[in-house]
Each structure stands twice: as C-alpha cells, then as structure tokens.
C-alpha cells in the first residue's frame, strides 16, 4: 500500500469512520511511514482545532423576524404548496387574491420591458391625439357640427388640386397631337355651317403646299417657293388666290415632305404656318399667324421681312406671334422673300405675308419631274387651278415612275375636287391608294369626298325648296 492511497483515506482513518478491518492496514502503514504519520498528525490537529471553532448563537430577533414573515405569508405559502399538493388553506381567499395581484404587479412594475411599452404607448397616444381626424369636432351651441380646423398639416395642398384639363387636340391629318401653335380657337366660329365639307377641305388642303401667304419659318435659311411667278405676271393668280383664301379657311402645315418645294434646306425645321381667311373681315381679309417662332429659336421678323404699309400688323410679343391683318387683296399675293434673304441671312427668318415681293425666283428646269411638280404646285398655290391641273397631268403622264407621283396624285385629286370634278378626283385618289405610303391619306380623302358629295347635292335641293316657299 503506497502513501498516496493511504493519504487519500487518512481523513476517514483519523476521523474514525472506517471499519476496523479497513483501518488496520492503513494504520500499519502510517505507523511505519513518517510522511503519512506527519500528515495524519496535521489532520488530527486540524480536527481538534475545528472543534474549538466558536459557534455563534442566532439573535432572537432574527428568529422572530423569520417567524413573523412566515406567519404573515403563511397563506401564500399554503397556496403554493396547495397548488402542488392539491390542498389549500381554507379562509385565505380574501387576502389571497389581493396579495397575488400585488405580487404580480410588483414583478412587472420595475421591468424594463414594461417601461418601454409604457413610453411607446404614450408616444402613440400623443400622436393619435394630434391627428386631425381623431380630434373631436367642436360643438357649437346650436348643436351644429363644425369640422375641426385641420390646420396646415392636413389641408390639401394647392399643388394637389386638380389641374385644368389639357387642351389636347388630335390632328386629323397626322393622327397625332396637334401642336399648341396650331390650335386656333377662332377657327370654329369662322367656319361655314358645313363641318363635313370643311373637314374635307382641311384634309385635302393639308396635302397641298402652303398657300402663298403662308409664312415659312425655316431656321437657317428661308426660301420661297421657287415656282412662284413674278408679281407683275401674276395678277390673275393673286386674284384667284385671294378668292380662294376668302372662301375657306386653310390651315397649312409645312410638313417634312413639303419643304423641298418650299425651302429646300430647312426641311427639318420648318415651323407651322397658318393662314386663315376671315370671312367677316371682308373680301381679302386675311389674317396670317406665324406661330412659335420664338419657341423654335427663331427671332422675330427681321427688318428683312418688312411689312407693307397697307398691312395692319398685330405684333406679337414674346411668344413672337405675328398676326397680320391683310387689308387688301393685294396683300395676299404670294409672299416672297428677298433673294438676299435666301442663304444670305441664315439666322434670319422672314415670316410675314407682307414681306417685300422679291424678284422672280430663277425658273427651275422643266425637264425633270421634280421641276414639273414644283411648277404645278406653284400654279396651284397661285390659284391657277386649271394650269396646275394641266401641269400635274403632264407630270404624271410623262413621268409615271416619279418617286413622288402618289403625292402629286393626291394634289391633283384635290384640284379636281375644287373644280367640281369628283369623278376624276376619285380616280386619282384610287391610283394614289396603290402607294403604301399614301394609301391611308388617299382613302381618308376619298371617304370624305364621298361624304361631301351628298351634302353638296342636298344643299341645292334645300335652297330650291326654300326659294319655292
């Protein structure tokens, strides 16, 4: 038996808790081992000292305090034990509920979660109180309910008020939104009664080049129609044009396909130009509006585009709207731009029908179909309908493969309509329908032409009946 085993059992050996048979070999080892004997002596000495450890008496007040608490809390203790053991002290119900509630409350009052919940509830309550919809409406003495003043925080913003409806108009010619510059509120009252007829006129007129008084606004370069005849040789044309202008309202829109004849270089930037003949202003009363020159980045009419003394021009202001009252039939003569303005003033724009009549433009060559087309279009614009028809016929018969033949057919059909020959007009429209590009426009024109025919035929009948009466 080694010392380690003996020393592990010395405590029991010295304490006398070992049986005699188990203690004998240990005691024999200790008697023969100095180290184990010394350790046994220390343990024995420690045990003797431990017996001298003072044991303090419990103060009586401590005992009484514990028992007082026990007697005061006997019911809760009995409840807890009873909950387990199935018994409960009778007669403890009254104080039991209150004590249980107080114990439950005291367990939560100081809880941080409860504190945070209270703060959160307080914040929500304050927020709800200041919501205008939650506030109570003040009661007036009469009993009427007065809505609470919502204050600035709940009032509808002016920016949220419904805006005025947009004045959007669809252009029948292009099936697109009509630019604001083209909206002409005064057009409707100036129209004759036959709306359908006017629509046909507008549609077909849109296919034609701009009438001579129209203003061509071409940034960079402004050119006049090259096929315009000189004024001295154009009295007949101007008279016819004035008559045509006074007869109807023609809205001209320089489309991208037209500027080739009008201006050449400024095809993409051709601004809208309108011409309106106001029947109420007498014969030849023509009001010309050049719109949006400012918005198009074009300055107001420059000195190059001078106004004749016979014109009463209504100068527009910042929007550069130019309303010009043409007082005489002479004034509706084709507007021509001074040759010096062609290319010489790239930034200037001549935008007035009263621009000084320029010298005759150099006559284009009549051999090419484009030249023939331009010439016919110029005659049409000048009011020479019959010569224009002849020109178109020559163009289409002599150059059947002309790339812009369908466009010429549409223009020719319009001229036939003007001269009262709807049959030929339909014929040319039918031919124009073969072109995929112009088929839609041709069909539209033909449909309107068909609708116009009964209206025109009915008008004389009505007049005859009224005359009979």
């Amino acid at each position, binding site marked *: 038996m080694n010392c380690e085993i003996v020393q592990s059992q010395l405590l029991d050996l010295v304490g006398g808790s070992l049986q005699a048979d188990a203690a004998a070999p240990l005691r024999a080892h200790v008697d023969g081992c100095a180290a184990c004997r010394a350790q046994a002596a*220390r343990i024995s000495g420690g045990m003797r000292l*431990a017996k*001298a*450890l*003072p044991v303090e008496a419990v103060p009586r007040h401590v005992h009484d305090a514990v028992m007082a608490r026990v007697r005061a809390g006997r019911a809760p203790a009995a409840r807890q034990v009873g909950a387990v053991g199935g018994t409960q002290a009778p007669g403890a119900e009254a104080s039991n509920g209150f004590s249980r509630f107080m114990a439950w409350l005291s367990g939560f009052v100081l809880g941080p979660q409860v504190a945070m919940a209270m703060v959160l509830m307080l914040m929500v309550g304050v927020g709800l109180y200041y919501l205008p919809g939650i506030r109570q409406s003040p009661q007036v003495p009469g009993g009427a309910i007065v809505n609470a003043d919502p204050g600035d925080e709940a009032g509808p913003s002016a920016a949220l008020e419904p805006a005025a409806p947009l004045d959007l108009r669809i252009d029948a010619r292009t099936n697109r939104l009509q630019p604001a510059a083209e909206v002409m509120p005064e057009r409707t009252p100036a129209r004759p009664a036959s709306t359908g007829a006017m629509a046909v006129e507008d549609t077909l007129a849109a296919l034609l080049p701009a009438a001579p008084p129209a203003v061509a606004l071409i940034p960079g370069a402004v050119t006049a129609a090259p096929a315009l005849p000189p004024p001295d040789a154009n009295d007949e044309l101007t008279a016819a044009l004035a008559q045509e202008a006074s007869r109807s309202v023609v809205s001209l829109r320089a489309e991208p396909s037209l500027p080739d004849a009008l201006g050449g270089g400024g095809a993409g930037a051709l601004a809208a130009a309108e011409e309106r003949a106001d029947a109420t202003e007498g014969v030849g009363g023509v009001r010309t509006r050049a719109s949006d020159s400012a918005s198009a980045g074009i300055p107001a009419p420059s000195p190059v585009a001078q106004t004749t003394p016979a014109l009463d021009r209504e100068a527009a202001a910042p929007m550069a709207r130019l309303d010009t009252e043409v007082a005489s039939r002479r004034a509706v003569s084709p507007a021509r731009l001074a040759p010096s303005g062609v290319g010489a003033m790239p930034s200037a724009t001549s935008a007035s029908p009263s621009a000084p009549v320029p010298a005759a433009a150099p006559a284009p060559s009549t051999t090419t179909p484009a030249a023939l087309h331009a010439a016919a279009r110029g005659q049409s614009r000048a009011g020479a309908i019959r010569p224009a028809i002849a020109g178109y016929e020559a163009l289409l018969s002599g150059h059947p493969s002309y790339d812009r033949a369908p466009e010429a057919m549409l223009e020719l059909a319009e001229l036939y309509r003007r001269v009262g020959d709807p049959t030929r007009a339909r014929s040319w429209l039918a031919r124009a329908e073969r072109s995929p590009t112009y088929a839609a426009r041709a069909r539209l024109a033909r449909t309107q032409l068909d609708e116009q025919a009964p209206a025109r035929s009915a008008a004389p009948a009505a007049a005859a009946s009224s005359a009979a009466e």
Partner: protein
Amino acid sequence: MARGASDLPDETLLRQFGSGDAEAFEMLLSRYERPLFNFILRQVGERTRSEELLQDAFLRVVERAGEFKGESKFSTWLYTIARNLCIDESRKMVFRRHKSLDATTVGEDGEGPSLVERTEGHVAGADRSTIALELRPRIAAAVEALPDEQREVFLLRELQHMPFKEIAVIVGVPENTVKSRMRYALERLQEALAEYADYVAELEE
C-alpha cells in the same frame, strides 16, 4: 401540531408547513438556524449581513416550499439556497477583510504585540482562560482565511456534521474532491494555529 414533532424528519415538517402548519416551520428553523447562521457568518464575515442572509434563506424556503419535491434532503436544499446567497453576496463585495494572523488585535491605539507574540511561550504558564478566549476568534479568523472551496466544505462538515456525499451534492463536485478539500482545510488550519495545538490537546485531555 402533531405530537412528537421534534422527532419528525425535515421533509415531513416541510409538508406540514405546506399545509399551513407554521409551527412545523418553526421546528425546522430551530433545527437549522444556528448552524446555517454560522455557515453564513463564516462565509460572509459580517454579522449583520449574515443575519439578513439567514432571513432571506428561510424566506426563500417559505416561498419555494411548494417546489420542494422531496427528491433530496431538506438540509441539502436549504444549504444549497444559503450557499447561493453567500456566493451572490461575495460577488457584491468589493473585497473581504480577512484579519491577518499577524495583525494587531484589540489594542485601542493599534499598538502592542501580535497574537503570535502573545501566545508564544504563554502556553505553559499563561492564563489558560485568556488563551481560550483568544483562540476562538483566531480559529474563526483562520477558517475565514481558508480558500472558498475548502472553507465551505469545512463548515458544512464541522457545523452541520454533514456526510461528504451530501456535501458533494451541495457543492457540486465528486465526493473524493470534497474529502481532499476537507483534508487540505484541516492541514491548513493546523499549520495556521500550530502554536495552539498543544493547548487544544491539553483541553481535550
């Protein structure tokens, strides 16, 4: 209270208290209050605080009497509660003031010979009653100076005469470990109070 309650086991008394018998609890209190108080006192070192902790320990017994399932001895449960209270109290204390064996004793001015100096050479002819009065606090101080794990085992064994197996349950270590701690504690105590060994031996004789 039933006749012969002083002979009833602790667990029976606790059940009687659970049924509303406060006297049964007082019996338990009378059985355990003194050793438990000394256990706490030697662990904490402050009388007033020890009294408070003693009350807390018994009040916890009152509060949790319903949780006692009887799977262990009542003494084991009670001392486990008290030990946990002492551990909590020790953590709250910044430091514990252990009286050094070399520290000066009761002199008003703090001067005078230490207890070692006073007991040296006095065992044979000195006033034994005086030495006995001095020994008791010295032993108490030596016990309080033991390491915590040794002290608690020593106190449970010496104050409650608790079996090592039950001490192992309370402390939460194997029984052999408990015995080792107890042996170390006794040896340390003997070494600390070696000068009193003969005197104590004479007292036993």
